[in-house]
């Protein structure tokens, strides 16, 4: 049984990175570098999001000959909606803090 979608700090980081290029297929290693999440954190998260239907994956032919095919990931339509909801929920407190800080 798949666990419920969550909005942990790691998931939020992953969503924010994937939202930068929502239509581009991205690889695990590149996602790990962009999010600074280690493979031990990133892959359980990718697996869970995929189980929940928020992420789609496919095997892609290698860019260089001699290398094996790679597994690439992209947010699904529901994943995009969820990621945007999580992003906005995260952004508003920051915005509120900024406004509060600017007020004399």
């Amino acid at each position, binding site marked *: *049984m798949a666990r419920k979608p969550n909005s942990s700090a790691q998931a939020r980081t992953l969503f924010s990175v994937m939202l930068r290029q929502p239509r581009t297929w991205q*690889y*695990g*290693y590149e996602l*790990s570098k962009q999010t600074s999440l*280690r*493979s*031990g*954190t*990133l*892959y*359980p998260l*990718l*697996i869970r999001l995929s189980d929940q239907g928020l992420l789609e*994956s496919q095997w892609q032919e290698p860019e260089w000959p001699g*290398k*094996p*095919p*790679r*597994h690439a990931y992209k947010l699904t339509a529901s994943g995009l909606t969820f990621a945007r909801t999580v992003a906005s929920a995260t952004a508003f407190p920051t915005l509120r803090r900024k406004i509060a800080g600017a007020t004399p």
Partner: protein
Amino acid sequence: MNVRTRLLSRVAFALMAHAKKTMPPCRSLWADAMERELYHTEGGLEALSWAAGCVIATYFERGGHEMNQSFATIVQKPSAFVPLAMSLTALALLGGAYIFGLATGQGGLVREPDEGSIAHLWQLLMAGQLPVLAFFVIKWLPRAPKQTLCVIALQAGAVLAAMAPVYFLNL
């Protein structure tokens, strides 16, 4: 590629092979996905760090997979069904001896002053399942408590069934 990088890379691939073995079969695609990324890591240390993370990820997946085991999956584990089978064999042994006793005109099962071979076999079967039962409880109770308790209830039922003739027939 220098010696250090080659060595680190080799260790990374060994770790990844372990990760692939650890991953539950239903998640093997993900183990392959992690392994393929290893070919794209930059440097031996990076590869080692990636592979170590993958080992952790596969252990998490394995733990989660075992936690989600159904009753049917757990009862199929040898440590679950062997004690059940031993109790049922002990019961069948008594049943067989009873029928044989009736057929030969000895009046079913009677208590012998010196315990016969059937009594010894029964005792061996009942005592022999204890270590298997203990192993089953230690291994599965923390991982799937509800399902394990159901299996234990079944095992307890089988033990009681095997003991009932001894009690009721005063053997």
